[in-house]
């Protein structure tokens, strides 16, 4: 018995390690290496090794893009949190047998390619889209509002695509929350709002941070959202990287941006681990029921 468990462990960990080495570690090392090389019109990249690409990212134009995309992603994250938290609380308050159904509905849109869904948003927001047409039809406005190709459209698109990533970790955190702690808080004189701030929010903070990261991290790189909904002005960091690789063919520069994005995301993950350590999950309750 021991032998087969050992063998299973060897293969499971071994395969995962090989996979991660080949398809995550190795490509990332290549990206880091490329970021220190020089652009070469013939061979894509060439020696010498230098940090020119990083120096070039300090250009005000790119810092502006970095700031813009961080801001749009943060706004999308906050919007997702404000929508996702009450939504997750509502799911948890449903009878147990309905919860999986609602969760299934939450992830159902994944069955359609997100690019297709982004095109759909484009149609909805466009000057001839359903919103503008209805408002004009109702006589509320004379000419179409500019909804598409605005920051609002990008944030809306990010929110729409990424909301499930906020809801799922929040749901799992809220679902684990012990109702007995609520009873105890109630017994000690805490009204509904106090219970929410002093019990629910702190105890679900790992879920909040996880959800925020799951929205914020991918949002920075979702170039097709800003391509389709943001027009030329509202760029995400992902757009810059894509342009450098596919259009300008400046791989070292694109790689440098990728490395910056990875470092940024790594920093946020570090924050997450700090936050989850802050809330010690065990203790305070023993197993028996009240």
């Amino acid at each position, binding site marked *: 018995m021991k032998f087969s468990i050992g063998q299973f462990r060897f293969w499971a960990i071994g395969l995962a390690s090989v996979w991660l080495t080949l398809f995550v570690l190795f490509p990332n090392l290549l990206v880091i290496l490329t970021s220190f090389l020089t652009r070469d019109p013939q061979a894509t990249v060439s020696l010498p090794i230098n940090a020119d690409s990083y120096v070039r990212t300090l250009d005000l134009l790119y810092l502006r893009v970095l700031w813009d995309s961080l801001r749009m992603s943060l706004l999308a994250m906050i919007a997702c949190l404000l929508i996702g938290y009450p939504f997750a609380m509502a799911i948890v308050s449903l009878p147990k047998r309905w919860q999986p159904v609602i969760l299934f509905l939450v992830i159902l849109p994944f069955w359609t390619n997100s690019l297709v869904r982004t095109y759909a948003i484009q149609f909805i927001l466009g000057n001839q889209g359903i919103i503008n047409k209805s408002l004009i039809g109702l006589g509320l406005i004379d000419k179409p509002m500019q909804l598409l190709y605005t920051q609002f459209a990008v944030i809306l698109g990010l929110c729409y695509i990424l909301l499930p990533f906020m809801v799922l970790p929040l749901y799992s955190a809220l679902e684990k929350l012990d109702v007995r702690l609520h009873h105890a808080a109630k*017994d000690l004189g805490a009204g509904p709002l106090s219970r929410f701030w002093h019990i629910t929010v702190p105890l679900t903070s790992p879920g909040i941070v996880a959800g925020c990261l799951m929205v914020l991290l991918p949002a920075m790189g979702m170039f097709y959202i800003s391509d389709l909904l943001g027009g030329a002005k509202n760029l995400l960091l992902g757009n810059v990287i894509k342009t450098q690789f596919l259009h300008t063919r400046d791989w070292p520069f694109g790689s440098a941006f990728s490395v910056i994005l990875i470092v940024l995301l790594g920093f946020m993950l570090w924050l997450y681990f700090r936050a989850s350590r802050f809330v010690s999950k*065990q203790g305070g*309750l023993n197993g028996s029921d009240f």
Partner: protein
Amino acid sequence: MNEPRALLNLNNLSKTYGANRVLDNFDLTIFDGEFFTLLGPSGCGKTTVLRMIAGLEDTDTGDIQLDGHNIGQVPAEKRPINTVFQSYALFPHMTVFDNVAFGLRMSGVAKEEIAPRVTEALEMVRLGDFAQRKPAQLSGGQQQRVAIARAVVNRPKLLLLDESLSALDYKLRQQMQIELKRLQRKLGITFVYVTHDQEEALSMSDRVVVMNKGKVQQLGTPREIYEQPANLFVAKFIGEINQLDGEIVEIDGNHEYEVRVEGLKWRLHAEHNFKVGDKVNVLLRPEDVRVEYIDDPHPDQYLVGEVVERNYKGKTLDSLIRLPSGIEVIASEFFDEDDPSFDYSLNQKVAIKWVPGWEVVLPHEV
């Protein structure tokens, strides 16, 4: 003694979950300053009563009066009542200090008053040095004491304790029983304790209500409940008891009866009114049963039985003795080193009697 003042009145409480009636027209009065215990097997409704008093459970019918005010519609957070939960339910993300301070902060107690009161409460449960720990860093007994401090710091009119000691091991439980009792005397707060452990109920309470199937079986002091059980359920639930079948053969008046038990006639006392021919249960506590050598001279009549089992319990020797009718009687005797006739061997014939008047005679129940 002053006339006890009623603090809490439960009138006609009922609760039904689906087809299960957990509480059936339940009435109860709890006096100011007493240690009151709700005792019963699991599912008897005792925890439901406690949760209704706390405000964590709705009542189907009936009302709850605290100090003469109806609090049935008052939400839990507004009742001057605090609970020590079975699971302790300490807030895992807060320090011990913040846990204890929680209730004071919620009720808007002035900031400079909070720290001294929390410290005082923690010292009282001897956890003064643990204020900055998280609950996860404490042992079960310490968590228990934090839960108590967190409740009493609010100076509630009523402190509810829900099986609060059941998660502790035997030794710690004994220690906490004494501590709780001492705390209750010191604070003068009315304690309402819920337990299924009859020993705990007897040793701590001023009064006990024994519940079964959502109904009161008996209400009284521990002594009344142990020595004069109102019915067979109470008799069997509170401690061990031997049950013999009997029949009333003669009424001597003034609650004295001639009762035939195991073929012999005994003159017994009973609180109930019986007619000649009534079937009765004669109940005997194991420690009230006397076992003696059969060849000793006996002035009184006795039953003859055969020792089928002997159990050395340290303090006592428990013998299982089978009567000719097949009924087995447990006798629990304290060791007496000076008594040569103390030790019996298996299969030995012995004489059984009991101190007249220590038996309990109840109407026959199956």
